[in-house]
Structure formats: structure tokens, C-alpha cells
């Protein structure tokens, strides 16, 4: 440790306990007196003195040997090691561990959302691949993972209803659609499907008046859809079958012709031919049977007796 004499009181003090004020060395007491009497002294003119043999941090005395400096201040080896490897406080370590635990827990807790999201991606891929069965399965699987998301369940019901309509189960489809339509996402509207299902229900209930009315309603919305026009033809054929009124027969044939012309332009003649075959059967025999019954009865399609006779 080095000592120095105070320029004011003349006493000797450890160097690290003195100050340099306007180039004069002062002990702590003299420095306080000086600063009280001289208001013109600025902060820049006051310097704390450091003893190069005493650690500025812990005060460790190194005898006559000068210590290494850190940030311009004499620092002992122990303090230097501490500053270079300053540990994080325990509460920071605990907080970090807590944070990691929360994140891990949250991932585990929300795993079902990740699974549901994966199912949604499968659903989108299936839609793009036009695989409606897989799309329906994936949307239902996603909805089961996140039952709180009503829109998801509604969307699953929507696609299930679509599937049911394809399977000729319009009553079940209608029930599903009516239960989900309020919660459907804005990108989906149930109105079209509801109309389609109601049309199917009217046919199943043999309410051909309503069947025709709904089919015409659909055709007004989609005048360029061969499928919808064929449905109108189907409804007129039903009316003809039950009333024997020739005007219904003619209208049925007219709509069928329109549908055929559009199908020839747009493609998909195979599916249309099957539907057309069933409508022609209905017109000729005045027998109304479901698609399923028709398929079972005529697995290779129906052939007109009139055509046979004319040959």
C-alpha cells in the first residue's frame, strides 16, 4: 500500500483514500471542506486517487507490487476472475429454468393444436386432390382435437354433409347443415348445400311438387350447370310419372337436352349418361326409383323398350 501527504492538513493517508482536486492532493475531510467553500470547482476537476498496489474493488493490499489494471483500475486476480466470469444471479437462473419449463409444458399442453393443424393440412391437400372422403375424415379429426373451435366442427359437418349428399342421404345431410350453418367460417356458405339437400329430401319424401320447385330454384342460380339442369329434368320426369301430363314429359326432355348440350361442351359425359339413363327410364316407364335401386336393377344400364321395338 502506498501513502501520500494531504496538501491541506499535511497528514499522511493511504493513497486510495485521497482525492486530487485542482491538482492538489486532499484527504477526505479536507476535500469536503474545500468543496463546501469553493463552489467554482467542477466535477471534472475532482479525481479519486487509486493506489496501483490496492485492488479498487475489494481493497486487497498487494504490498509494494502494482496490480494489473481492469477498466483502468488496479484489480486483484480474484476480482478479475470474478468480473470475467461473473455468474448470473440465482433468481435469473431460476427464472430461465421456469421459462424453459413453461415453454415445454405449453408445447405439451397444446400438442392437440399441432395435431389438429396437421389434420387441417391433410384436409387442404385432400381438397386439392379432390379426395372428398379423405377431406371429410381429416376435417372431422381436426375438429375432434379442438372441440372448442366451433367453426372447425361446423366445417367438418359441412364436408360430411357434402359426402352424405353424394351418398344419397339428403335427410341426414340437411340435419347436419342446419346444425352447423351458424358457426361456419365466412369462406363457406351452407345455403347451396341446404338447397341441394332439401331437393333430395323432397324427392325421397315423394314430394315432387317441392322437388320441382327447388330444382328450378337451383337452375335459376346456376343456369350453366348441366347437373342442375338435369335435376330439373328429373323433377319434371317425376311430375310426368305421377300425373301423366305430357307437358311435364316434354319439359323434362327439353331440360335433358340442354343439360346434354352443356355437358358435351364442358365434359363429364360418362356421369351424365348414367343420370340421363335413369331420367329416360322414368319417363318411359313412369316408374320412380332411387339411384341405388336403379343401379341394382340395371347394373349395365337400362335400354329403352321403344328403341328395341323400333329396331
Amino acid at each position, binding site marked *: 500500500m502506498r501513502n501520500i501527504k494531504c496538501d491541506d492538513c499535511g497528514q499522511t493517508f493511504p493513497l486510495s483514500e485521497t482525492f486530487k482536486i485542482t491538482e492538489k492532493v486532499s484527504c477526505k475531510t479536507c476535500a469536503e471542506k474545500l468543496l463546501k467553500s469553493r463552489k467554482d470547482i467542477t466535477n471534472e476537476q475532482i479525481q479519486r486517487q487509486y493506489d496501483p498496489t490496492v485492488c479498487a474493488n475489494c481493497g486487497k493490499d498487494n504490498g509494494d507490487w502494482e496490480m494489473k489494471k481492469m477498466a483502468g483500475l488496479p484489480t486483484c486476480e480474484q476480482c478479475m476472475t470474478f468480473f470475467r466470469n461473473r455468474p448470473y444471479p440465482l433468481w435469473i437462473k431460476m427464472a430461465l429454468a421456469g421459462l424453459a419449463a413453461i415453454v415445454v409444458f405449453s408445447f405439451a399442453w*397444446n400438442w392437440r*393444436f399441432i395435431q*389438429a393443424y396437421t389434420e387441417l393440412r391433410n384436409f387442404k391437400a385432400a381438397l386439392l386432390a379432390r379426395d372428398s372422403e379423405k377431406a371429410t375424415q381429416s376435417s372431422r379429426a381436426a375438429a375432434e382435437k*379442438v372441440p372448442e*373451435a366451433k367453426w372447425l366442427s361446423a366445417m367438418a359437418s359441412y364436408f360430411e354433409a357434402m359426402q352424405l349428399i353424394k351418398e344419397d342421404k339428403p335427410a341426414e345431410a340437411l340435419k347436419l347443415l342446419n346444425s352447423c350453418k351458424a358457426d361456419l367460417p365466412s369462406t363457406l356458405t351452407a345455403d347451396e348445400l341446404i338447397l341441394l339437400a332439401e331437393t333430395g329430401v323432397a324427392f325421397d319424401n315423394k314430394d315432387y311438387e317441392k322437388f320441382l320447385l327447388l330444382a328450378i330454384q337451383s337452375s335459376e342460380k346456376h343456369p350453366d350447370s348441366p347437373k342442375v339442369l338435369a335435376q330439373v329434368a328429373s323433377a319434371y320426369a317425376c311430375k310426368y310419372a305421377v300425373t301423366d301430363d305430357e307437358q311435364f314429359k316434354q319439359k323434362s326432355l327439353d331440360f335433358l337436352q340442354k343439360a346434354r348440350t352443356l355437358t358435351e361442351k364442358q365434359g363429364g359425359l360418362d356421369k351424365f349418361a348414367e343420370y340421363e339413363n335413369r331420367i329416360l327410364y322414368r319417363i318411359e316407364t313412369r316408374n320412380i326409383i332411387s339411384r341405388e335401386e336403379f343401379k341394382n336393377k340395371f347394373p349395365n344400364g337400362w335400354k329403352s323398350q321403344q328403341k328395341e321395338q323400333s329396331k
Partner: protein
Amino acid sequence: MIPGFLVVIITFPGVIVHEAAHMLFCKLRGVAVLDVCFFRVGNPCGYVLHEEIEDFGTAFFVSVGPFIINSLLCILICSPAFLPVRVFGVNNPLSYFLLWLGISIGMHAFPSTGDAKALLYNAKKAIASGNMLAVVSYPIVLLIYIANIGSMFWADYLYGIAIGLGLPSLLL
């Protein structure tokens, strides 16, 4: 206008992580940390006092360390909440806690003007020796100043939301 000290109190985890990130890079690069304050109600709301850094690469990483660490933690913490809240619209307290925590940390990712000054000081010294990182750091310093001005208009908050919620939206 919400007083700055109130914003700092509400988003205190971000301040703590910011200072911890400065300290982490000091430790990684062997820079002596003379004093550290992880959080306080005052200006600055936290600080890391370290020895003068000679190597510019070290100075660069110590200055921008919080940007890296806070941004990564923001993404990590917000990600478990992203799907329930943003995709499925399911709101639960855990998700909102995670979003508060993540966005609080993300919005303190910007280095402070103090960090920018330190970076600029070191860049000026390093550029004389043709250090390319020092050249690159000039626009970064400018960006830090712009970001700090933008913080007055919630740019820091928007940044937190952008990386916490916006980034997963882009990736998924």
C-alpha cells in the same frame, strides 16, 4: 400516451432478458462485467457495465446480442400460443400469458441508443483497419437509431408482434 416507465414495468421480462443477453455475450467473449442491473424503474431501466472492448467483433456481438436472443426467445415463447390463438381462435389464459411474455421479450430486442453509441465508437476505431463488419455496422447503427425513434410510436411493440405472431403466419 402511456408513460415509458409503465411500459417498462408491464414488459419487465424483456428488460431482464435484454440485459441478460448483453451479459451472455460478454461472458461468451471473455469480457469483464463490472456491474449489472437487470431491472429497475428508471433511466436506463437496466444496464451492463463492462470493460472497454478492443476487438470489434466482440463489441458488435455484445451490442446486438439482445436483438438475437430476445428475438429468438420471442419466437420460441409465442409459438405454442400461435396455433390456438391465431389459427383456431381458442383463447385460454395460458396462451395469453405466453403472448404477453413473448411479445414483452420481443419488444425489448432493439439495442438501445447507448448500445448504438458503443457500437459506433468501436466501429470508428475498427474501420481504420479495414474491418468489414465495422463497415456493415454503420447502417445497423442507423437502423438502431431509427428503431429507437420508432419506439415512441410503438415500433418495438409492433416488432414483438411481427416476430411472435407474424413470422409463424408466414412460415405455416
